[in-house]
């Protein structure tokens, strides 16, 4: 198909540079510099989509970011299928593939259109009122069907293969918008030498100069001036000019989020380039030059393909050289649409008529239109339109009544005036003020260091816009950087008038007509009136009831119309009804841009111990523990997890096992008041702990609940080596620092995280001492010299060690701390010795089973933030003579000393082979009606090869008084009978500890 609507006499694109593309499988040709929308229009294609709710045929409304209708899918390959792309924003490239959305089986014949025929049913609030019963059917039946029928594009089903960049930037002046006002402000600011960033969402700067043919700046055509200004700015060292870059969010303290589309317009993107780049700009001053957005007229059947904004038709003509029709009607309430009619007329396009609702329009544009012989029907309104897949006629009637005249058209341009784009100002928490004279919201009180210039500030005349922008740019530069440049002088003039217009719909229109306010969400004027009649008083309620302004275009063309209709129906002035809040993003932002590099392997750091490579090469299966990779178990060839863990568990209790405990949190507490500090932070007594001895410490929060635990060794009178749980390391240090800095600042204590500095090799089992003996120098490791719970400093394999005699398995055991750099070498030496004694390497699963056999708790598994030391059977760890420690008062609270608290006990299943599920609930009587009274739950549960039966730990109300009692664990398929037993399943007397 050839570009039959492309005019050789108009536009700025180069005819020789063609680009091929397809839409719904049909091949077309366009020009470099086209948007998808302009290229489609050049080929006479107006029908591009189906509406959200009624599936009505829709065309292209605008020529910019505000587009509500022309949403398409852009497909590059199987993984790159971007839905809901605005055809008015998507730049054309050779080979572009676009598909329409929300239609089946085809765009021209869509079964969903029956929603339109049945539309009297689908009034505002229809879903809320209709699909209420039965309640359960909403999530299971109604919602999925509704979502299927109403909707936008289809999300891609493959992982996003593209890369996205993140940049931070600082500047003195950030100018948002590269139209006449933004360029003038940027030029003035840049002249001072201060750091300037100018961001514009279009491929080229110029803004409204793209279509505003009457603008002359510094003696030349406005568009040409803009391109020269861009070249000048781009060559200045102190200026960063970002095109294809949308400022989508205005955040605290002048931080503005920009998203730069780097490859979206490129036929074959550079594989090294990111698809998009997110900029987080911190600006001393922000100049908002975001322009204004034209509003459509609200009238019956105003949504047919071919009906578009007047300024859009001008942009397609003056910039892209495309006529949007051959017999074009205009329906307006403002002068600016006349300029579109005049431009088209001069380009040889027939203007069927200008229908103006105003009774006595006047001014140069009106006079020129008449002089050109264009028929102007004043005081008239369009009461309906004809055509299905494309507008074919308009019916015009005087507002005062009388006969209706049908005028054939193949396109209709509408304008009801311009809405200042105050979105970013509003996001910055500035207060909007309603200007009665011009019936629009303008920036009022500023909350941040920003200034608005040009159309977004309500300044209409081009000369005033430029003057205002230059002054604002100079002032922003001076105030942010203290710099002054030579005065900038830019002279501008235009014949065009952008003021006036109307809001809402014309009184007297057919109350059953579909006069669309919000095209994207299919909200009509009638829906808004209905919402008010049904009791919605606040605009926030009207919005949510009708969904006006809630689509992906966020009501850029519809909000003011909706507000005006609601205000009129309520009989209140507009400011009293209020405006809904603008929130980021201004236009949709991809998840990819927000996420940037933080995904996959870069989502968060992976922490590996010094011995990780050894475990890997010895076949370890790893598990994630926080950010750590920990060896879970070491299967021999042919072993499953169960077999490997059973073997590891047996070996530790008969010979020995070697375990990487490096992930334990480690904190060194040092200083003259170290012992006093430990007394305050842990429940245990520390002052009398001898140097060279260890103690199991329990840490509480102030409310009396267990916060962490770990073995603490005293290396010197003023030095403690504290261990924490793997997951608790950071928060325990934070907790300690908090008390040290803010509650006990007089204590002379220093806290140092040493988790990463020391690798820890646990050697556990009857042979542990024999294994390490040949490697240790300078430490007597006999039972007499180094009993259970002691610590010595010396050397192992020639490197310094802090050697702990301690056990989390219940066997004789050592934990060898060595500087992390030596971890692997020492591990290999220990492993070599271990081989002589049939030792095994074991992982976290075996560690868990062994400790559960001994009834040792894991904080966070057997406790949940509501467990006291007494509940956990750890009363012995509380220093009874202490007058203070964190949690001492919390423990006295009535609830914490009351009877009936859940206590830690052991459980044995009646069938020894049954392993309970962790988290399973426990009841006393399985025959009681549901909901049953649950008296506790299983916290840890394993198969114990050493015991020959399953074991479990549980928190049960009054658990210690229930020893021997039969309780029940109801599961979906059966009830498991259990017996309450001591939580120590193996070696109850603790004889193994001492060899």
């Amino acid at each position, binding site marked *: 198909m050839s570009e039959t609507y492309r005019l050789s006499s108009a536009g700025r694109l180069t005819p020789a540079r063609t680009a091929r593309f397809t839409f719904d499988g049909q091949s077309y040709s366009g020009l470099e510099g086209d948007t998808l929308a302009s290229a489609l229009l050049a080929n006479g294609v107006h029908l591009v989509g189906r509406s959200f709710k009624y599936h009505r045929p829709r065309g292209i409304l605008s020529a910019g970011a505000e587009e509500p209708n022309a949403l398409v899918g852009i497909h590059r390959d199987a993984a790159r299928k971007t839905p809901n792309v605005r055809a008015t924003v998507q730049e054309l490239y050779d080979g572009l593939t676009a598909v329409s959305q929300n239609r089946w089986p085809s765009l021209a014949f869509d079964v969903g259109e029956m929603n339109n025929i049945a539309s009297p049913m689908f009034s505002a609030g229809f879903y809320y009122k209709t699909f209420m019963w039965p309640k359960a059917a909403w999530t299971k039946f109604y919602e999925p069907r509704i979502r299927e029928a109403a909707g936008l594009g289809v999300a891609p089903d493959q992982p996003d293969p593209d890369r996205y960049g993140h940049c931070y930037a600082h500047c003195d002046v950030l100018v948002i918008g590269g139209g006449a006002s933004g360029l003038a402000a940027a030029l003035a600011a840049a002249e001072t030498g201060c750091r300037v960033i100018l961001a514009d969402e279009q491929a080229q700067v110029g803004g409204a100069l793209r279509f505003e043919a009457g603008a002359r700046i510094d003696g030349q055509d406005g568009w040409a001036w803009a391109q020269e200004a861009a070249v000048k700015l781009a060559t200045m060292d102190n200026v960063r000019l970002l095109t294809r870059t949308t400022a989508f969010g205005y*955040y*605290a303290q002048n931080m503005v989020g920009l998203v730069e589309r780097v490859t979206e317009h490129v036929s074959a993107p550079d594989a090294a380039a990111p698809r998009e780049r997110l900029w987080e700009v911190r600006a001393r001053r922000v100049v908002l030059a975001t322009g204004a957005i034209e509003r459509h007229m609200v009238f019956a059947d105003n949504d047919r393909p071919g009906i578009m904004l007047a300024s859009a038709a001008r942009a397609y003509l003056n910039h892209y050289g495309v006529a949007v029709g051959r017999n074009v009607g205009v329906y307006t309430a403002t002068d600016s649409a006349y300029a579109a009619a005049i431009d088209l007329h001069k380009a040889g396009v027939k203007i069927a008529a200008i229908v103006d609702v105003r009774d006595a329009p006047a001014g140069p544009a009106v006079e020129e239109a008449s002089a050109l012989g264009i028929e102007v029907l004043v005081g008239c309104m369009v009461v309906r339109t004809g055509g299905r897949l494309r507008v074919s006629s308009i019916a015009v009637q005087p507002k005062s009544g009388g006969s209706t005249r049908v005028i054939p058209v193949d396109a209709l341009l509408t304008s009801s005036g311009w809405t200042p784009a105050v979105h970013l100002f509003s996001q910055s*928490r500035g207060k909007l003020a309603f200007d009665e004279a011009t019936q629009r919201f303008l920036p009022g009180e500023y909350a941040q260091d920003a200034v608005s210039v040009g159309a977004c500030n309500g300044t209409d005349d081009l000369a005033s816009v430029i003057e205002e922008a230059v002054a604002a740019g100079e002032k922003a530069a001076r105030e942010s950087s203290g710099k002054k440049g030579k005065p900038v002088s830019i002279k501008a003039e235009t014949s065009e008038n952008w003021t006036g217009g109307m809001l809402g719909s014309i009184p007297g229109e057919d109350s059953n007509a579909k006069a669309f306010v919000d095209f994207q969400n299919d909200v009509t004027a009638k829906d808004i009136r209905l919402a008010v009649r049904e009791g919605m008083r606040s605009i926030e309620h009207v919005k949510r009831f009708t969904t006006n302004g809630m689509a992906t275009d966020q009501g850029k063309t519809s909000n003011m119309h909706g507000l005006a209709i609601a205000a009129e129906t309520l009989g209140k002035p507009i400011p009293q009804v209020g405006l809904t809040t603008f929130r980021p993003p201004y236009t949709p932002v991809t998840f990819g841009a927000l996420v940037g590099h933080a995904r996959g392997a870069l989502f968060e750091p992976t922490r590996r111990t010094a011995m990780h490579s050894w475990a890997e090469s010895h076949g370890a299966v790893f598990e994630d523990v926080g950010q750590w990779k920990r060896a879970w178990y070491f299967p021999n060839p042919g072993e499953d997890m169960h077999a490997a863990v059973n073997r590891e568990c047996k070996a530790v209790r008969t010979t020995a096992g070697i375990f990487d405990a490096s992930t334990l949190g480690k904190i060194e507490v040092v200083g003259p008041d170290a012992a006093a500090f430990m007394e305050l932070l842990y429940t245990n007594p520390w002052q009398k702990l001898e140097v060279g001895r260890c103690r199991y410490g329990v840490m509480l929060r102030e409310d009396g609940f267990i916060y962490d635990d770990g073995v603490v060794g005293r290396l010197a009178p003023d030095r403690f080596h504290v261990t924490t749980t793997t997951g608790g390391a950071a928060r325990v240090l934070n907790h300690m620092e908090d008390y040290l800095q803010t509650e006990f600042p007089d204590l002379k204590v220093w806290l140092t995280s040493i988790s990463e500095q020391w690798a820890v090799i646990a050697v556990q089992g009857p042979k542990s001492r024999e294994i390490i003996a040949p490697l240790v120098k300078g430490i007597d490791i006999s039972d007499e010299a180094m009993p259970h719970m002691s610590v010595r400093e010396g050397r192992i394999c020639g490197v310094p060690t802090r050697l702990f005699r301690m056990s989390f398995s219940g066997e004789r055991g050592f934990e060898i701390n060595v500087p992390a750099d030596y971890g692997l070498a020492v591990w290999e030496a220990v492993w070599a010795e271990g081989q002589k004694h049939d030792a095994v390497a074991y992982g976290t699963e075996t560690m868990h089973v062994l400790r559960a056999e001994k009834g040792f708790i894991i904080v966070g598994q057997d406790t949940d933030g509501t467990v006291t030391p007494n509940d956990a059977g750890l009363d012995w760890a509380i220093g009874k003579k202490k007058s203070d420690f964190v949690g001492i008062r919390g423990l006295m609270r009535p609830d914490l000393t009351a009877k009936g608290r859940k206590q830690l006990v052991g459980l044995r299943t009646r069938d020894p082979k049954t392993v309970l599920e962790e988290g399973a609930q426990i009841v006393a009587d399985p025959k009681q009606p549901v909901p049953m009274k649950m008296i506790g739950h299983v916290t840890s549960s394993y198969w114990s090869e050493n015991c020959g039966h399953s074991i479990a730990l549980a928190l049960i109300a009054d658990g210690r008084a229930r020893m021997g009692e039969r309780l029940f664990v109801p599961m979906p398929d059966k009830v498991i009978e259990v017996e309450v037993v001591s939580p120590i399943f193996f070696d109850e007397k603790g004889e193994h500890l001492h060899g």
Partner: protein
Amino acid sequence: MLLIRCPYCEEERPELEFRHAGEAHIARPAPITDISDDDFEGYFFIRSNPKGIVYERWRHIHGCARFFNAVRDTVSDKFLMTYKAGEPKPELKGSSR
């Protein structure tokens, strides 16, 4: 993203470097074992949560690691001032307590 002035580093740093640490000027009673259940409830559980001026603790956790205090307006989300831990609570107009 907020910029927060660390009173120890004496410069504004991005919010990412900090962690909020709850309401400020709640001193741990001494001796804590002597206080009533009601006083303990007030000390540990009850927080003011006003609309407007709040006194709160922050920690420059990814910087100097110091805890400090800040005065912030919850309506505008603006920091009015920051000051070192242990310094007296500044009286600002409009503060609720």
